[in-house]
């Protein structure tokens, strides 16, 4: 992507003012987006993202510059502009170790690159999903089916001698269905994705996802408003894991922990969660949406146990925050693109399976809320206060699933909520999502088995 001699020159130019670490990140990414709406292909967009990010550390100072001027002059200029921010002088410590290419062992086999497949083959699948969603019920008034694919090539080199290249191929299939009657419109969504090529899309059970999206929309059209108050809440598997992504995951990222901006800071070895909670971030799961071969700082993907049987074991750490914390990287440095400096982020994060069955959890709940599909949410890492939406909810009465509910939002404090997990089932599942933070929007999986929290505040429209 760039030749080795030029990379070495850029790494050296970055250290001329006393920096003690420099890094070059080159990205060349091809994207395709096809969107079928109103039963016709409205968008077919192709693009190429290309640019270079240059990063310098000096102690706890960090400087980042990026450009898509990839000429020798352009890159050296960007490197020295960044170096100007560090006001020191070079010494014998400011050296670039010789670069020797390391081979990345791919953990995630890819068969069909997106650009090797004719778009008409892709369109046929979109059309099929559209038919399935629209045929589901007469109240389905609109369906949007999208396929997004990307092929990202990266080169990462740094002054410590790291010099690696990697290719990441991702495919995601998204179904949005709208159900409407004279006075209302409700939506249903399903968006499976993997770190895989077109073979994933071709093997996907499209009928299932299209029908589920349509079923959610129709169910919500006929749902009552959710009640307000504090209830036991049963959260189903797969994307249900978003609650712990928001409530705990972000607070375990070094970006928050290193500055003491997290309720989990300085608590390794302490009990922070219910005994039933084991929380893991694993970038190595084969072909999962949030998986990686190497992170965006060139570190190998790994499995990090964050909480084990309620005891805090560790954090997700990137190279810069590792300095502040006197720790090592955990392979968690990620970024959306060359336009962002990397920071500590999640990959595939999940609650490990427990002993109960889903049926037992429902049967053991006298009165509560069952959140079948979760929407997104957010958290303030400093306070741990989170919120998230339930896309499909039900009332649970006397151990049985009762009527559907709409408009339920769950709020609370992450550190408190994980102490209140009182049942965990054995049906672990993962769901794909996009996670936004200071280093941009990146693909992550959230996951969990079905579990129950003894009490969460539910905000609905039925104030009483």
């Amino acid at each position, binding site marked *: 992507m760039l030749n080795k001699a030029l990379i070495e020159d850029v790494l050296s130019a970055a250290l001329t003012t006393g920096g003690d670490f420099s890094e070059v990140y080159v990205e060349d990414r091809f*994207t395709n987006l096809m969107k079928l709406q*109103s039963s*016709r*292909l*409205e*968008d*077919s*967009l*192709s*693009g*190429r*993202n*290309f*640019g270079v990010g240059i990063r310098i550390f000096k102690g706890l*100072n*960090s*400087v*980042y510059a990026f*450009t*898509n001027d990839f000429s020798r002059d352009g890159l050296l200029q*960007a490197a020295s502009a*960044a170096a100007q*921010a560090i006001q020191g002088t070079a010494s014998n410590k400011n050296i670039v170790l010789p670069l020797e290419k390391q081979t990345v062992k791919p953990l995630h086999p890819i068969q069909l690159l997106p650009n090797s497949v004719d*778009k008409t083959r892709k369109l046929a699948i979109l059309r099929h999903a559209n038919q399935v969603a629209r045929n589901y019920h007469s109240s389905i*008034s*609109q369906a949007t089916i999208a396929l997004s694919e990307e092929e990202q090539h990266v080169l990462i080199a740094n002054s410590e001698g790291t010099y690696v290249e990697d290719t990441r191929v991702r495919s995601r299939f998204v179904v949005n269905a*709208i159900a409407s009657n004279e006075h*209302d*419109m*409700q*939506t249903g969504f399903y968006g499976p994705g993997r770190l895989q090529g077109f073979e994933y899309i071709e093997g996907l059970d499209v009928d299932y996802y299209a029908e589920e999206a349509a079923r959610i929309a129709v169910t919500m059209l006929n749902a009552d408003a959710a009640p*307000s*108050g504090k209830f036991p809440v049963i959260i189903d598997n797969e994307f249900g894991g978003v609650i712990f992504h928001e409530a705990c995951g972000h607070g375990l990222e070094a970006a928050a922990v290193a*500055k*003491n*901006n997290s309720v989990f800071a300085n608590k390794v070895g302490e009990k922070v969660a219910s005994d039933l909670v084991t929380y893991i971030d694993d970038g190595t799961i084969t072909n999962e949406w949030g998986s990686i071969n190497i992170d965006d700082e060139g570190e190998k993907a790994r499995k990090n146990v964050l909480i084990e049987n309620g005891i805090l074991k560790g954090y997700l750490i990137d190279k810069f925050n590792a300095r502040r914390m006197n720790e090592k990287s955990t392979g968690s440095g990620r970024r959306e693109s060359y*336009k962002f*400096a990397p920071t500590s982020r999640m990959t595939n994060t999940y609650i490990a399976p427990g002993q109960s069955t889903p049926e037992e959890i429902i049967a053991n709940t006298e009165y509560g809320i069952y959140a079948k599909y979760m*929407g*997104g*949410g*957010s958290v*303030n*890492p*400093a306070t*741990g*206060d*989170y*919120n*998230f939406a339930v896309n499909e909810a039900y009332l649970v009465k006397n151990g049985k699933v009762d009527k559907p509910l709409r*408009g339920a*939002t769950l*709020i*609370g*404090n992450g550190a408190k909520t994980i102490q209140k997990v009182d049942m965990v089932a054995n049906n672990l599942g993962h769901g794909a999502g996009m996670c936004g933070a200071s280093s941009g929007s990146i693909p992550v999986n959230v996951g969990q088995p079905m579990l129950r929290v003894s009490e969460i*505040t539910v*905000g*609905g*429209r039925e*104030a009483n």
Partner: protein
Amino acid sequence: MDINLFKEQLFTEGAKLGFSDLELYYEKQAGFGCQIFKGEIDDYVSATTIGVSVRGLYDGKMGYAYTEKIDKDSVAFLLENIKENSLLIEDDPEELFDGNATYKDRDFYSTSLSNVTIDKKIQLLRDAEKKIYEYDPRVVQTDYATIQDTMVEKALFNNKGLSLQDRNNFLYVVFSVVVKENDEIKSDFYFKLTKDIDSLNPEEIAKEAVEKSLSHLNGKTYPNKTYPVILKGSAAANLLATFSPSFSAKSVHDNQSRLKGKVDTVIASEVVTLIDNPFLEDGTRSGTFDSEGVPTKELTVVQEGVLKTYFHNLKTAKKDGVESTGHGHKPSYKDSIGVSPSNFYVKPGANSYEELFGTMEEGIIITSLAGLHSGANQISGDFSLAANGYFVKDGKIIGPTNLMTIAGNFFELLKDIEMVGNDLEFSPMDYYGYIGSPSLKIKGLAVTVD
């Protein structure tokens, strides 16, 4: 490669391949951002990037592609992909704008802002951060102490001779402060966007950021019920931003807007007037043409409660038999032409924020909302959102509440607006446009307190 050379190669090669029309959209962004933490430069970013997108008419059908790599290879990449995409697209035919129009002679680029040195920007951060720590012993630290300036240059060319250029620049600061008392941790932030760095005063920043954060300490719980609510300007702006796609004719045509069929009918209380002004001095979306090259103009979208028009681009306007309103914007060169506001806001009323809650017997003030990307259904208008704020009794703020949710429906809320404040604020969340509102007094919303 120089952009003019790139353009020429593109148009020449395109003609050879049989494209009848070609358009090149060019966007250049240059920016500087810095964050400090306890006096140290924690993050420092300088960047210049270019992106171009191309639309081309092949065999009467329009295709798109974009690139950030400006070289000879990309010319071939773009033309090949545009051709393949154009053959598949089944949407109504698009046309390129001939540019036969008058454009406002305005420049939104401030030379004095571009001349502000990096040292001066960093000094402002240091001064304000220092004042924040000095202001109150309950300040634990800052979550963000950040400055960012951005310059955007846009240009549009086609092979029929159209050639347009716009530029804009602005600077913003964010100071988010974490405070702690006993075991309770709270945070809030100061945000301001401006072209005049001298309008940012470190003492005022510290006062506002710290007092806002402290004001949430010692929260209490209150009964869950429907209360009269005041949405502070920035919270109201975030809510309007979230539901702004409903005002687009594209959403209406796609059956994704509840405003379908509502032009010239009452959709809001008579105190509500909504304006889109592409010529605001400090607007991040100010410009003289949209992404299709259509001249922008000031537009009253809702007048005293009556919906006057949707936002249109060329395609939606043609379908409705009206003129484009100059809202054929694309969020970036990576996107296709959509329909979105420029600088869109609720017209300020006469009363101050204090006068708004002074009229309340019992009610809730909402200072901020969270979860807008998940807890709001953009199509139905239903929302159930996490919120922070205060409890009001007999016209006085009693104190902060614990974390709340407020639930309602945006389209019902528009009709329930009883008073509009005079304190117009713009939302920092600007994906849909630069969107603002003064504080709004709402008849009632369902409130749940943790």
